[in-house]
């Protein structure tokens, strides 16, 4: 079980969090301007790397805040945690 450092509440057990998949996937400015292919990319397609991955978590049983993390999907080590809206920090894994 991972210990996830909520940017607000500090480290808490994974069971308190909800996973939100890839971070930094913006809702399209104007969906109606997109082709079906482009829209499908937004709806269904996400990065799925083996290695560092910028992803979203919500501290759902705590402060209910969404935040971002860079986590190595091979080791599950959290390399960085940052607040929603902040740019992805440089990480070394």
């Amino acid at each position: 079980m991972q210990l996830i450092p909520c940017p607000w509440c500090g480290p808490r057990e994974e069971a308190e969090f909800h996973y939100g998949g890839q971070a930094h996937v913006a809702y399209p400015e104007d969906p109606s301007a997109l082709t079906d292919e482009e829209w499908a990319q937004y709806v269904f397609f996400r990065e799925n790397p083996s290695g560092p991955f910028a992803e979203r978590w919500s501290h759902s049983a705590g402060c209910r805040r969404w935040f971002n993390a860079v986590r190595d999907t091979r080791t599950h080590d959290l390399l960085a945690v940052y607040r929603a809206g902040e740019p992805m920090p440089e990480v070394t894994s």
Partner: protein
Amino acid sequence: MTFRKPTGGEIDRHTLLRFTFNGVEYTGHPGDTLASALLANGVHEIGSSVKLGRPRGIVAAGSEDPTSLVQIEAPFPEPMLLATTVELYDGLVARGLAGQGRLAPEPDPARYDAKHEHCDVLVVGAGPAGLVAALTAARSGARVVLLDEQNQAGGALLGVDEYLDDRPSAEWVGDIVAELRTTPGVLVLERTTAFGMYQDGFVLALQKRTDHLGFAAPAGVARQRVWRIRTKQTVLATGAHERPVVFADNDRPGIMLASSARTFLHRYGVLPGSRAVVFTTNDSAYCAAIDLAESGVDIALIADARPDAPARLATECAARGIEVRAGQVVTGTEGPGRVTAVSIGDTRIECDTLLVSGGWNPVVSLFSQARGKLRYDTELGAFVPGEELDTVRAAGSATGELDLNACARQGREAGSAAAAAAGFTPGGQVPLPVSDSRCTSRSGLVVWRVPGADDASFVDLQRDSTVADVLRATGAGLRSLEHIKRYTTIGTAHDQGKTSGMIAAGIVAEALGVELAEQRPTTFRPPYTSVSFAALAGRDRGELHDPVRVTAIHPWHVANGALFEDVGQWKRPWYYPKPGEDLHTAVLRECRATRESVGMMDGSTLGKIDVQGRDAGRFLDMLYTNMMSTLKVGRIRYGVMCGVDGMVIDDGTVIRVGEERYLVTTTTGNAAKILDWMEEWLQTEWPHLDVHCASVTEHWATIPLVGPRSRDVLAAVAPDLDVSNEAFEFMTWHDTHVAGVPARVCRISFSGELAYEINVTAWYGLAVWEALMAAGEKYGITPYGTETMHVLRAEKGYPIIGQETDATVTPQDLGMSWAVSKKKPDFIGKRSFARVENNRTDRKQLVGLLPVDPTVLLPEGSQIVETDRLPEPPVRMLGHVTSSYPSAALGRTFALALVRSGHERIGETLYVPYEDSLVPVTVTDSVLYDKEGARRDG
């Protein structure tokens, strides 16, 4: 005959414990394990092997034992325990196993629990290294947890009679434990096995709290506890296991690891037999031989595989009349069951015990689970921790170090380093003990097996896997240890290969002609030792398995005989049967009463979310398919929400409380999901929007009051409220008092009838419900449950999310194009409506179905076909029945269904396979009752 020494060991000879094994009564003493008590009684044959049915004895003294599997029968049946880890208690009934245990059919009466613990330094293992590590860390002020699987601290010291600092080692151990116990912030746990090491310093440990008490175990105390430990730093002082050497017929009872025999002697005062042969590849077995000889065991011979015997130890043996033969190996054994003779080359020696030592395997399971890399130590013939980790360090014989003084020093270094890494400065230095030990074992020879009858040379005694099996696997082309493990099943049994895994790897490397250093060891998977399912379930059983959520009015439902339906975690009244009523008769009565007079239900479980802020309307416009920003204050609108894929995810009403404030309702099951959905969009996509959401689901009790007489009932309890149709229009709300309590009353209807939804602070829910019951008594007010609610809405063609929808249904499919805004430039899901698949004309659409025979009730979930005769499978299906009920209002049965091109098929006859026939049904509009909507105004 007894093999118990008159003195010595950690047992209480003054107390007799009676126990039964394989149907025979024996006695033992407090401090015994089942294994030591059996050996004291001369019993070596425990069970039989799983595949070949060969007798199996006791090989080791601890949890690494590969053979002594027993079934506990009393006090309560428990399968597959090792006799070496079962502490003896009075009245124990057990039997040896043939590889399979038995589960008790009766419920386990014991309690189990879990506890969270946090520490700076966790030390696993209370042997010399662990004790020094724990005390070093404790003296620095760190919070320390020290765990050990035994019932007392000491580790390897428990199995020897050595002196530390010129006094019995137990005294040294006792002093350290005493100091630990009195140091604040230190927790010492015996009978506690760390069984898994996970991410970020998470260690799980199982504590056996009352097992050793047997029948005397107090009922209120959890029998076993799972400790969930979060630690900053860990010291693994997990020790080492002696390993055997494989030779022909090495599986007989009476063949035991030398150090284990020594442990039985010193810890339990038990002799393994009368006459023993010792077979070793290293020094440590000499000490066992000498100690046993001094206790009266006839040591017939020490066969040392090394070309030269160690001079000092050989001299000591000679002084005791023990013959030592260097360069000799055991080549076979005899015996009908227990060993009766051993062959060493051409020499045959009669004996009842064969003690074996093939060297030591550091216990690296947890280190490996912590993702520490292992390194093959050629001198030791074993894998050892191969790197330093930031938060995990090994100490003592777990590193391969076998000298006691050196182990203690490692413990001090590890304890100090761990405390420092956790942010603590050193306290008083723990003095290292000085040992007089005669035995060090680094000078061993690595011998995996003695060539001989391969098919009787057992590598894994529990799985009956032999050298021949290993060679057959390599001969079959297998190269990977994982493959060979699976081909031979070595290491997959109860002991998970604690003593066999390394040997198997060695034999494979020899067979393949590769270096062991190049072989990857097979993975050490948790748990280190087996853990009962019940311990892992802990207290999350029965009523605590998952929370039962109830409303403020719940006690009334219970008192009035409601049957309940599980909706998510909620218990909702399903229907309220009167004596003699079944579901259908009760629901017909509830429906009729509601449509003809007045009924009410507990709607408190509906999700309720307060949405506030300048952009609240804009926000809701994005979430709902229809327009919410144009809703006027005081009015209510029904809305549908879709996912980005355009499929319906929820529906409910939205009431506009103020210019910048809305209250939205969600379905019962989706309340939390929809609030999360809103927060996700607000926080991650639209933080610029001035909107805040708050759940008020449980703040309000919600009571739909439904039926033509609902206005009369409401008027009676809400004297301040003008309930006339003109003053209180459909889809509006008013704040007022109901039964003297501030209330918000919404005029909405999920039944087509005149109806009001009364919302009061939940504390008043029960009282207001009772007031409504009283006020409605003269109209025969009838409480109804979810089933009647479902029937009433189905008669009106209103879908239930999750029943009419299944994540493949759009608002258009539900016939709700009217609820999909054409004006809004965007809302969530809108873009998906333009996809190819969404524009097919043969999508499944919601329609009504009327069985041609009005008495036939279609089962929900029935499929629908086009023809009155079934072709051979696969049969083309047009859709399925989502809801089906007998209807009091319609005087017949009816159904709702999702049907391909359903809207175009209205009027057609389709067929529903039901049992052995095809039931003809007429497709209709989904609204079957009061199509004109005349009834909603009362």
